[in-house]
């Protein structure tokens, strides 16, 4: 090994990406928890915490550009840096979904939920697990996992469709529910999008290791 500084920097970037992903995953989990518990203070915390996520992602981006400018990476190193850049954008967007859920939670306000939440927390649980596994697979070059994780996105799609249909029934039963129903549908849609973005992360992992672009959607 003759490029210890360079290798250390790449490792550090992977770790930073892992850490910001963990923050986003916790925010996503809390956003649903505070929604279920009708915790307005908690929801506000999530909205504010997203600022930190954005800053961390910008920091990663800046460090990537510095490394590219100073180290002239090629081949796997270049793909890795490019993937860190694109994945940090995916993570930043997933952070926005968590913030979006918290904002909706604030909008619903003191109003009682039209039904106890069952499938939405289930979706969040699957999404959070997928996200954790995907970022672990990326940092450990685990392409076997990167191929398996996207298959779970099917479950997310099924759950989303189920929630969507269920919410329509609620509106039909009582049109007064329409506003909250639409908000809950929006939340489920956000979670469904998290799944799609996790699939993108898995595609990047495979590309980084093999050099072959793949479409797993």
């Amino acid at each position, binding site marked *: 090994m*003759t*490029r210890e500084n*360079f290798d250390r920097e790449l490792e550090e970037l992977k770790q930073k990406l892992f850490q910001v992903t963990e923050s986003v995953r916790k925010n996503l989990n809390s956003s649903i928890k505070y929604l279920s518990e009708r915790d307005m203070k908690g929801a506000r915390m999530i909205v504010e915490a997203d600022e930190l996520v954005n800053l961390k992602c910008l920091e990663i981006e800046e460090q990537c550009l510095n490394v590219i400018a100073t180290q002239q990476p*090629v*081949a*796997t190193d270049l793909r890795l840096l490019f993937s860190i850049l694109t994945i940090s954008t995916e993570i930043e967007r997933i952070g926005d979904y968590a913030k979006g859920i918290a904002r909706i939670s604030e909008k619903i306000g003191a109003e009682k939920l039209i039904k106890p939440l069952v499938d939405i927390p289930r979706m969040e649980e699957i999404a959070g697990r997928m996200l954790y596994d995907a970022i672990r697979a990326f940092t450990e070059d685990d392409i076997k996992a990167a191929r398996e994780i996207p298959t779970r996105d099917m479950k997310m799609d099924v759950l989303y469709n189920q929630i969507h249909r269920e919410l329509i029934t609620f509106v039909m039963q009582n049109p007064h529910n329409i506003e909250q129903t639409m908000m809950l549908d929006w939340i489920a849609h956000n979670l469904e999008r998290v799944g799609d973005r996790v699939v993108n992360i898995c595609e990047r992992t495979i590309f980084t290791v093999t050099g072959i672009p793949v479409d797993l959607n």
Partner: protein
Amino acid sequence: MTEEIRMKAEGYSLFYGEFKALNDISIDIPVNRITAFIGPSGCGKSTFLRSFNRMNDLIPGVTTEGTVFLDGNDISKEDVVDLRRKVGMVFQRPNPFPKSIFDNVAYGPRLHGTRNRSDLAVIVEKSLKAAALWDEVKDDLNKSGLAISGGQQQRLCIARAIAVEPEVILMDEPASALDPVATLKIEELMNELKKNYTIAIVTHNMQQAARVSDYTAFLLTDENRAGNLIEFGPTRQIFTTPSDERTEDYISGRFG
């Protein structure tokens, strides 16, 4: 490779006495393309480059196996003066003759029989233009070739090489003694020259290989210190998805 081939090595090995310096190398050098030879010091890339115009013949004790072809003809059977007219060479350090700029460029054509001053003037102008040096020296053709800058001297050497209308130009680290701006000028020039010539270049500068070449060959010594061709392919592929781990390690600076 679907390209038309200008030069070709087939099962080529080279020995310094008992010592095998190049081991069984086969490679195609395509027409009007720049082929770069990269690899760590001592891997035999310069020795290999010199095999294409039999420069190694001058070294005592050198023997070879296998064949190098130019346009399908075995170069070992060609007249060496004729071969070196067809396969010119530019070296690491600019080496103009201690003569005027004009005489430097006219040297080769004179050697090959052109005596008429006005014919020579046409060749000198054409060659200096092709080497992107004409505008800088046209009013000073009687100035010594040694009195111009290093970058200009190297372009003068390129003009001298192309004055005899070669088919192939071999370049052995042509920019390693030059500053970054002069280096970029040589690289730009190479891109122009490849329209009319086939170029093979040895370079230590991997970014240079990535920037200028169409094909890249990676050489590496084996456990007996003999140079082997590890990987050869389109430059874009070598620098993005090399198929051999040793190539990846070398181009990404993990050794060498």
